[in-house]
């Protein structure tokens, strides 16, 4: 493998990691509160609010229905507003984040739903306010589940980021398409796949390790 190729590999790997971690971090930042609100607005013991729930659920499902490749180009004006450009790795982070927020929010909601109703009831009986219930009981108790959700989201982002090439985002997926698919260089295709598998395994391993560490069940 030539030096040029090697540089391409390093760059693409870095781009993938950068896109996945940055959009993952933003997805957690926005998706966690969204997931919490989705859950508590449906729960009669905390902060039931049917209208809010219906609206948020509709937006969440709406974004999740859009194929990612469409989302990538559809929100170009918004991307330009945020990053100043619509092309490149940093620009790709915006649609990746937008796509991952509702995905992660639903995973958070599901993790919170798994917290036994008795615990919420116990909190209420102790005089916990809705905010205290969320901060002191719900989120800590659901943390292992939330970490699993982060793992799943990051792995999904590895997949999504393969399409970032469409807006010049680069990354391993883009490399595989350009060299492996368009130029029939099977060796390079295989190498990127192996790298991607390794990356996914690493994320899964770290996620499982952390989830186990915070769980005391």
């Amino acid at each position, binding site marked *: 493998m030539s030096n040029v190729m090697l540089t391409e590999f390093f760059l693409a790997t870095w781009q993938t990691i950068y896109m996945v971690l940055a959009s993952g971090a933003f997805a957690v930042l926005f998706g966690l509160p969204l997931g919490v609100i989705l859950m508590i607005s449906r729960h009669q*013991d905390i902060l039931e609010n049917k209208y809010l729930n219906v609206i948020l659920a509709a937006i969440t499902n709406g974004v999740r229905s859009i194929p990612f490749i469409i989302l990538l180009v559809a929100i170009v004006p918004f991307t330009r507003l945020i990053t100043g450009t619509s092309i490149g790795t940093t620009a790709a982070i915006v649609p990746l984040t937008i796509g991952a927020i509702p995905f992660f929010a639903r995973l958070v909601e599901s993790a919170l739903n798994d917290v*036994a109703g*008795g*615990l919420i*009831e*116990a909190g*209420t*009986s*102790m*005089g*916990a*306010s809705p905010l*205290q219930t969320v901060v*002191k*009981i719900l989120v*800590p*108790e659901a*943390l292992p589940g939330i970490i699993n959700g982060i793992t799943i989201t990051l792995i999904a982002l590895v997949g999504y980021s393969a399409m970032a090439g469409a807006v010049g985002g680069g990354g391993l997926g883009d490399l595989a398409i350009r060299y492996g698919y368009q130029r029939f260089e099977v060796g390079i295709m295989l190498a990127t796949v192996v790298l991607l598998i390794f990356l996914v395994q690493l994320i899964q391993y770290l996620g499982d390790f952390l989830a186990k560490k*915070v*769980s*005391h*069940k």
Partner: protein
Amino acid sequence: MIELKQVEKTYHSKAGVVHALTNINFKVAPGEIFGVIGKSGAGKSTLIRCVNLLERPTTGQVMVAGQDITKLTDRELRSTRHQIGMIFQHFNLISVRTVYQNIALPLELIGYSKEKIEQTVMPLLELTGLLEKKNQYPAQLSGGQKQRVAIARALASSPKVLLCDEATSSLDPHTTTTILQLLKDINIKLGLTILLITHEMDVIKAICDHVLLLDKGKIIEQSDVIEFFTKPKSHLAKNLVKTSLRQELPIILQQQIKPTASDNTNALIRIIFHGHAAAEPFIAHLMLELNIKLNILQANIEFIKNNTLGIMVTEVISGLENLPQAIDYLQKNDIEIEVLGYVERDAN
């Protein structure tokens, strides 16, 4: 301390209106242990949840420490709830918090400082015998230990009232006894008023001062615990007491018993005595003064709330004609007597 007035709770479901509670009125005096008993589905859980408004009654008043808590704002209700501790059948501990942190939780909610929390939690760990378990997580504890943590947690905010929702129902008999002892200890040491719901008569027998029997959302009867066991009024209460006090006759006698007397039968009578009556030599009196000879077939002494309750089934060998005087004498001495039926003379 607690008073429910005209409390009703109805649910609207697809199947129609469900009356979970109807016309509930009762009072729990300060410092007493008040037990609500009933079958599953009787409405016990709804009832106890109405006391701290985990469920809001459809109508009626819930008075706790003199104030109608159904009229409070959310904020006021939260601070009132600090005065009402609650423990649950499934403990409901936070799995990611240690024993110490679980007990500290209600204090964190109030906003105590770290030092003040420690000053409050340490004595509670001692009271509930959990000092050594302080840094363990709930998953590492036995059921009884988990319930101790829950009790300590419920006591942390120095409540006036403790609600126990089937607190011993998922524990084995031995652990149940130790938990009940702890509750009794707390009741005495802290003067805490306890309202508990259970389906186990043994719980009522062991620690309650007052009993309320609930069935299909309605109060069937309520009375002092001794009265409940000695003079149950309703059919349901009678059955419960009978089973609980093992008053069922041995099967061999049940098969032989006849409702009416004949020439060759003896009467079977049940005698129930309690309190000071237990000190009265009444069998000797019956034999010597009234010439009634008794053969004891079954006898059982129960301790209910520090009172002795004796139950005896006897066969009247002779002197049946004097039975009216005997009944008269026994009733004067607060001893209950009941003719159960008749058995053939040589039956045993």
